[in-house]
């Protein structure tokens, strides 16, 4: 069974929102694997699929999961889905996450030593303005001091 088929099962069975910790972990693992190999047009399609399936809601809930590893995995997925290098329409994902109340949960991750690195990384991408990215040549060019620290940051290299 391919990764795409597995992802469909994750979404159909709502594994991310499952009461079983094993199912949630399995769902997160498949989603991480999918996100880590997706770029360009496929990334845009993936973002659209995940938003249409309502994934931002269980992802937000996973930010306050009892399992630390799952909290970190959810942060990693959010950080990457909100990167323009993964999904050019990441602004819509940011909007969906805000609507799901991710802001209040995510800021709490800044107080925990074990999650703060990925929380900062996710926040960096969430606060990024796509209008400043170099792929929009017609947009207003920023002065060097005010340019975003990372125009299209991705968290992928940091993950083993």
């Amino acid at each position: 069974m391919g990764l795409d088929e597995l992802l469909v099962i994750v979404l159909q069975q709502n594994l991310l929102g499952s009461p079983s910790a094993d199912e949630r972990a399995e769902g997160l693992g498949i989603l991480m694997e999918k996100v880590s190999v997706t770029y360009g047009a496929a990334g845009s399609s993936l973002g659209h699929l995940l938003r249409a399936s309502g994934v931002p809601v269980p992802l937000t809930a996973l930010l306050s999961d009892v399992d630390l590893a799952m909290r970190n995995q959810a942060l990693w997925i959010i950080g990457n889905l909100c990167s323009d290098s993964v999904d050019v329409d990441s602004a819509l994902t940011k909007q969906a996450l805000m609507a799901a109340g991710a802001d209040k949960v995510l800021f709490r991750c800044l107080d925990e030593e074990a999650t703060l690195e990925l929380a900062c990384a996710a926040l960096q991408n969430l606060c990024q303005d796509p209008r400043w990215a170099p792929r929009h040549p017609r947009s207003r060019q920023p002065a060097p001091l005010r340019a975003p620290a990372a125009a299209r940051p991705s968290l992928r290299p940091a993950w083993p």
Partner: protein
Amino acid sequence: MALSVAVAWRVHRWAEQTVRLGAVARLSELAAHGSENTKKYAAGALRNMQVRLLEMPPDQLKALTPKDDKPKPMFSRESPLNQARALALFHGSFALRLSFGLGARLRLRIRLRLKLRLRVGLRRRTALVVTFPSLPP
């Protein structure tokens, strides 16, 4: 697909929400964290927020600040430090802010106090001269 202005505007609600929920101070602390990655990401988040906040209209920026009904003294002990912090945040010198540790904060506080004392002293001296002019010879 290029983002419409309306969608891009909503993206910035994250920057605004970071200010509203008081996470800026925490991010500033984390920008001096021991871990290189944490430091880098926290600084990046602050920089991205700064870009957004700088292009906001003043009335919207004002609306982001927490509302406090209590009247504040004009010369509060903390005000010069807070003003210096705000200047460091909104008028560049980002690298300076990254190394803005406890020692630097204490030094700044002492310098500001000395400056305030100096100003008060100068005013008193001037007032004395004006109030009691010397008699003509």
